[in-house]
């Protein structure tokens, strides 16, 4: 990981340990936005990971249905769209 990605991850971890317990987690997704950010930064680096995390946070609003939303895999070339979410076994 680049120092930039490390620093951003540090900021997210700091958030998880200070502000998050203070204001309460209200995420509509799984994994939660902060965990998503940590994973995205680790997998995709500061720039793309940060971008993915920003988009995720923007999505995390009452007008989005939310739900399962994993970080897209790193190896996938740009063309390949990541699978949206796993179909859920019902019943």
């Amino acid at each position, binding site marked *: 990981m680049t120092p930039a990605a490390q620093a951003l991850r540090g900021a997210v971890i700091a958030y998880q340990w200070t502000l998050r317990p203070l204001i*309460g*987690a*209200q*995420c509509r997704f*799984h994994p*939660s936005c902060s965990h998503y950010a940590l994973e995205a930064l680790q997998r995709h680096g500061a720039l793309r990971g940060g971008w993915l995390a920003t988009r995720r946070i923007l999505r*995390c609003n009452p007008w989005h*249905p939310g739900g*399962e939303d994993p970080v897209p895999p790193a190896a996938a070339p740009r063309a390949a769209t990541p699978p949206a979410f796993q179909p*859920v076994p019902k019943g």
Partner: protein
Amino acid sequence: MDQKRLLAAIALSIGILLIFDFLGRPAREAQRAQQAAQQQTMQQQAAQGQQAVPTPGPTGPLGAPSDAAPAAGAPRSPAARLPVEGPRVQGSLNLRGARLDDLVLKDYRETVDRNSPLVRLLAPREGAAPYYNQWGWTAADGRTPVPGNDTDWTAEGSRLAPGAPVTLRWDNGQGQVFEIALSLDENYMVTAEQRVRNAGAEPVQLLPWARIRREYTPPTQGFYILHEGFVGVLDGRLREETYSSAKSEAAKRNGVAFEQEGPGGWAGITDKYWLTALAPVDQSARFRATFRALPEAGQDRWQADFAPPAALTVAPGETGGGQAVRLFAGAKEVNLLDAYATRLGIPDFDKAVDFGWFYFLTKPFFHVLHFLGSILGNFGVAILVFTLILKALFFPLANKSYKSMAKMKVLGPKMTEIRERYKDDPAKAQAEMMALYRTEKVNPASGCLPILIQIPVFFALYKVLFVTIEMRHAPFFGWIHDLSAPDPTNLFNLFGLIPYDPAQLSHYLHMPAWALIMGATMYLQQRLNPQPPDPIQAKLFQWMPLIFTFMLAGMPAGLVIYWSWNNLLSIAQQWTIQRNTTASRPGTAAVPAAAVPAGAAKPKKG
């Protein structure tokens, strides 16, 4: 088992807090002792009729205004003083050295007590807290005698008051007459015009200057959201230097902590509520503003000064070699600073109040709070009302999810089933639940974006409350007589039943009622929040109310009240949301409640 662990953890936390306090104490005591020692040396020097060593000399040929030591040993008559009488200030001008070194603010008192002394802003050099403004010249040609610290000026005029200007005059006996024309306005602004009449045969080269000098280091809040120390807007940029940063910078650069040459601007020294600042009258002319930290006789001296970028030449028979600089010395009332900014063209003068990064939020918030305070008659109530308005504005964001509540009822059986199936794996259960929400297009959480948007907003409010002078000595209900001071009650002496103040031992033994209320509301609020999935984070989450109770114990009461009220409003909001959620689940047996339409929560919408 869990109980034991909890108790152990509480004991440990308190222990850590006490240890920190204990470790901090020797440093504080050493500082106090050092200050006392310094004062003693100063007194001794004064007794010997000998002032401290002069400041390190000018940095360059046109450099710093330097402190000429008065003639040693010579018995001196007491300096003549000229009264300063404004509607909002009173004091006197020291005619020896042309110093404004005695000024109290008539509208502000030291404490809440109506009989307490008025706030003293400027004080003479001989006292314990020297803080003054001075006008003078440096001889750039190295031969023209210029007025110094021990120059006795003659005054034309009997007092300085609005509409009653005064001109100070001093003849150097070599053909040059120095003049300082002073005027005072209705508030806190003194305007000084310096000039030299050259009746000699040769041209003279002089550098006029005006300086604010503080010869002691005031106790600061030392809190990162409040700036105290040097402040100014120079060349369009806000410049701030704390005392410690100025000291380390100045150590590297011969006493100069910061220097900026450019058109106009303003610069000075700020306290939490008070400001002394210099601002050239002609804001388009170029000036050099400097912040200095000068150690002198083991004591730090702080100085902010304005001077032209280069020395001025006054030809024989002409008048010149001067500058016109205003001096603001008073309370940082935002509306007054704004008025000066518009009327006198002092750029961004309101930034003397530390509105911070969120200026675009904090400034409007201040105006709303000020307005509410003036119509409601109580600043505390204004805080409560304003917080309510903010919460109401954000309520639709939280409320949006209610619309799906009716659907949640249908999902109830599936949800209980998931919970049953993954009883031992909460993470997995959560993932399944999320998937269910997504497929069924419902979700009880409001999301991260609304929360992230709210953080700067509520931080901005917190910041305004911390820095604004409106809160100073503003009463609230009950035992709160000053919203800007910590709540005086203390749990550890049973709220006054025991006639002993344990806070003397350690300030962690001060646990006021409002901090307890804050802790309780925070605890309740957290009970309503979903727990973080990580077990260690979940533990921290449980500790948060206790940590914050201690952290906020010594904070201004207004802030603690704001926190408590904010928590209460959050609880009310969360409770309405949660009631709808639980009511819609079968098995909670709250069938009649479930019959309440989801829209019932709507009327509360802001």
